[in-house]
């Protein structure tokens, strides 16, 4: 009824290949964007920005980067956290060496550093696959975090070994550092995420995306039909690490404000991987749904007892939180093993038929 596709005729190939062949999808996206650009900023408090909205966006972006590699090109990676670190440290060095550099340029450039490192560690993917490749990327994870700790030049010989974000202005507005307001940081992150998501959608549904999917589904067959395996795998590593690197730069510069090497250790990689898996491998929407479940839901659940005045110890809330989130993850994966994105797709199918199912 609400999702009726009857009457929406396609009269050209172009219309059939449009981003939203179904009109309601475009309408829904419009509503979400209005929420993101207008309604949330008008209503959210600083806590909502800093603990919910900004982290969800940044984690979604990181998961999107991983999803390009794992979900579309089929190369399992456990090094996401370290690649985020490369982006963050590169951005820090760029900003401190060239203080007059625009932060957008610095963030865009820091992505190239992590892309280069990603391609380097992606080289083994030409010979090894699956779990074996995961082990090779795990090596990247350990090596890079070790490097962040030992190479003092990276953190400008700071005594505590941490990087700290200075105040950075763009067109007279402070966008990063302690003086930046939460709302500017939110808009900054939102714009970057929107732009990258737009490109990611189009890359993955175009020629390159199909190439990746062919490699993912059966690489020998892909090679037989003339796909250059080396090029497509390394390109997947490049694009994925670029997006992950940008997510890392945003992670430190637009959200955390300070970071030490341990932050980029394996728990971060796992967290991003969980978001991608629970959201749905091989989907763009899934990253956002996964990030909402993994990043935002614990915060929301954590503030429920206080909102209703239930006297519970914060440690107890934390324990309950871990149990609830764990149970939810298992429940969602049992209901739909292919992730939340697939879950939503099924709901949408039902809605198209509703109220007259077969």
């Amino acid at each position: 009824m609400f999702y009726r596709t009857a009457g929406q005729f396609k009269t050209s190939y172009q219309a059939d290949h449009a981003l939203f062949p179904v009109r309601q999808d475009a309408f829904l996206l419009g509503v979400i964007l209005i929420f993101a650009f207008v309604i949330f900023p008008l209503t959210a408090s600083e806590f909502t920005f800093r603990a919910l909205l900004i982290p969800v966006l940044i984690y979604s972006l990181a998961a999107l980067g991983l999803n390009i590699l794992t979900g579309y090109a089929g190369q399992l990676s456990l090094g996401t956290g370290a690649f985020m670190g490369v982006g963050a440290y590169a951005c820090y060095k760029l900003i401190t060496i060239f203080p007059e550099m625009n932060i957008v340029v610095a963030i865009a450039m820091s992505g190239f550093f992590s892309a280069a490192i990603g391609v380097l560690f992606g080289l083994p993917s030409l010979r090894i696959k699956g779990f074996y490749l995961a082990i090779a990327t795990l090596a990247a994870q350990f090596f890079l975090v070790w490097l962040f700790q030992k190479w003092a030049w990276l953190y400008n010989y700071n005594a505590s070994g941490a990087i700290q974000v200075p105040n950075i202005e763009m067109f007279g507005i402070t966008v990063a550092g302690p003086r930046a307001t939460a709302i500017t940081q939110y808009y900054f992150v939102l714009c970057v995420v929107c732009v990258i998501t737009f490109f990611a959608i189009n890359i993955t549904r175009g020629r390159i995306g199909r190439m990746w999917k062919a490699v993912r589904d059966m690489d020998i067959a892909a090679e037989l039909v003339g796909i250059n395996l080396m090029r497509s795998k390394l390109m997947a590593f490049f694009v994925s690490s670029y997006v992950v690197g940008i997510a890392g730069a945003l992670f430190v510069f637009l959200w955390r404000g300070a970071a030490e090497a341990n932050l980029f250790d394996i728990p971060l990689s796992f967290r991003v991987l969980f978001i991608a898996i629970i959201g749905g491998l091989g989907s763009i929407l899934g990253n956002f749904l996964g990030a909402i479940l993994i990043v935002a839901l614990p915060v929301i659940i954590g503030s429920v007892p206080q909102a209703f005045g239930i006297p519970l110890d914060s440690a107890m809330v934390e324990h309950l939180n871990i149990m609830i989130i764990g149970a939810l993850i298992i429940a969602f994966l049992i209901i739909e093993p292919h992730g939340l994105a697939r879950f939503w797709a099924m709901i949408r199918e039902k809605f198209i038929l509703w109220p007259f199912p077969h």
Partner: protein
Amino acid sequence: MKRMLRNAILSSALLAAASVAVPAVAQDEAIYIPNLAYRTGPFAATGTPLMNGQRDYITLLNERDGGLNGVKLEYDECETGYNTEKGVECYEKTKARAVVTQPWSTGITLQVLPKSNVDKIPILAPGYGFSPMADGKVFQWAYNPPSSYWDGASMILKNISDGNLDSLKDKKIAFLHLDHPFGKEPLPLLEVLAEKHGFNLVPIPVGLTEMQNQSAQWLQIRRERPDFVVMWGWGAMNAGAITEAVKTKYPMDQFVGVWWSGHDGDLKLVGDQGKGYRSISWSVPNSEAPLMADIKKYVVDAGKSQINQSEGEFDSVFYQRGLMISVILVEGIKAAQEEFDVRNPSPEQLRWGLENIKLDEARLKELGAEGMLVPFSTSCADHTGHGGGWMLQWDGAKFVKASDLLTPDRTEIEKLEAEKAKEYAEANAPWPVNEECSM
């Protein structure tokens, strides 16, 4: 539609969350003291007794005196699990009503420190955080009384060299530390002192993932045969190091830790074999003190404490240090109340209060805590107080005081503090510096 519905649910949840952060005006009569506690995660074993101590002192004041000068104190914990990400969340959640931030981790301190000038909430980090915070002109909103890590390092060296650092010449000192901002903190000072006094410093980092298994580090110690091992450990690392030291038969009387490495629970694991292990400390447990009798009467026996009595937590160093941390904070609040003649001081007023803490021996005696805390006083320029500390020594069953009051050798530290504070201010420009106070 479904997604719209989901959106509606999500946005209402966000609004609900947002309303939590808005101050509840009705409760504003009480002074709101949040604590970014960690009773979960890898550091819970050492965190829990400290949090219990902080909590119980506030409970005591509310139960015994009806609050502070008639105003109730509202102690609230926000669980971080020592995770910096949770730390930011907790900071944002509590800052609307908070008079003070107690970040409880060097990593979280580093994140909230730059914001202190903007949000104007004082940070109280007793015995941790960034050592240059002692410079009150630069770090107007941060306090780390009564001793900083650099003070601690200086006192340890002074004690193991019997007061004459030159006697350490050509000796080898291994510095076993957590590979984390906290553990690296004393390195700049130790390097300067090693250069100056000609001792051989061997830094041995312990990664967060190898805290419980330090065989590689102790193999290195066995090979290097250092004259002393100085430890900057926390959480599971302490127990790991002490059991390894026992296993490798490293002489315990040459093994010295910072105040966070003197946890009763870690030493109880090895009992008699840990005899001789020392830890510098700015607080000493004294279960006979009048304050402790009151805690027992009003809080513990009244069932209002969370301590684990069968494990002897009441007598432990960390529990009683937690109490002392709240004593320091409450002294600051009290000073602010009296100076500005207000019942509920604002964060700005508390900043003045924390700058004017006078915890001398007389005042400690008045509080019933004589000898439990080093006497110190803070000022506008000196946010640490540099009260010094005592050596505590493990006698096989408990920690006992094993030295007179030690004081840090400030000449090198002051130089370093000024230098690092300046560096910090430059890196974070524009950073306001308080020129009004004189040293």
